[in-house]
């Protein structure tokens, strides 16, 4: 069970990071808010790449 969780940890860790960034973005200082924006964009891009890759994998399996 633990091995299964660890091997699928990538989306979990990314989600935790994204949530942490969103919390900071919401509750942080005014100054840090704007400065953290690029990090959020990068995390979203990474998520998008992972999602596209996942969809493509499922598509090829069905095909």
């Amino acid at each position, binding site marked *: 069970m633990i091995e299964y969780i*660890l*091997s699928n*940890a*990538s989306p979990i*860790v*990314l989600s*935790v*990071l994204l949530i*942490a*960034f969103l919390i*900071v973005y919401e509750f*942080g*200082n005014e*100054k*840090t808010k704007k*400065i*953290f924006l*690029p*990090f959020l964009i*990068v*995390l979203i*891009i*990474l998520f998008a*790449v*992972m999602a596209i*890759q996942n969809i493509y994998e499922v598509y090829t399996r069905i095909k």
Partner: protein
Amino acid sequence: MIILLYLLLLFVLISEIILKINNTAGVIFYGIFLIGILMSVSFSKNFGKIQEFLLVFMIFPLIKIADSFLLIYVPWRAELISLIVLILGIYYIWKFKVDLGSINKILWLIPLVIILGISLGILGNYLFSIKAASYVLAILPIAILSEEIFFRGLLMNLIDSKINAIIFVSLIIGIVNINFGIVPALFLVFVNFIICLIYSSTRNLILGYLLNLFVNISIILPNIYY
């Protein structure tokens, strides 16, 4: 600041060792590292030079995590990660108004730098064994540009003391590349020490870029043909 620098070095070294033993555990350690820096930056009362440095340093664990997660074709992944580093680096250089120095100064050093780069690369060629060298060569210019912008342009300029900046940047590049082995990592520390010395004395990024490029080209080229 000095204690902070060496603490960060220690953290990165531990994370790299854990990453080499177990990929997932290393990534989780990097994630904790990233969240720790994030919290310390965002909840500090004033936003000074140290916070700027920590914020820029946060790019580093983020890139490591992205590198382990994206299971796409390796050249594309390397290209994407270089582009992310480049864009974030340029954004923060613009945002923090970092002075990069001039790029049209002391250009007569270029031939000397190229010769030095090629000779260092031939020396280092015995230490590295690179597989799939042709695609590494293809992504090399942009990877090195992002490395120069991030490490030399951004990190070195955000550290106050020159000597600490040179030692920190060259050591961290060595630690990042520790998966090649310890002797190649030491060689990279040596090469980057020279590049940092050149940059801090001339304030010209082009010289460091060319030196790094020619070192890497002359390390990789013999791997393609033999």
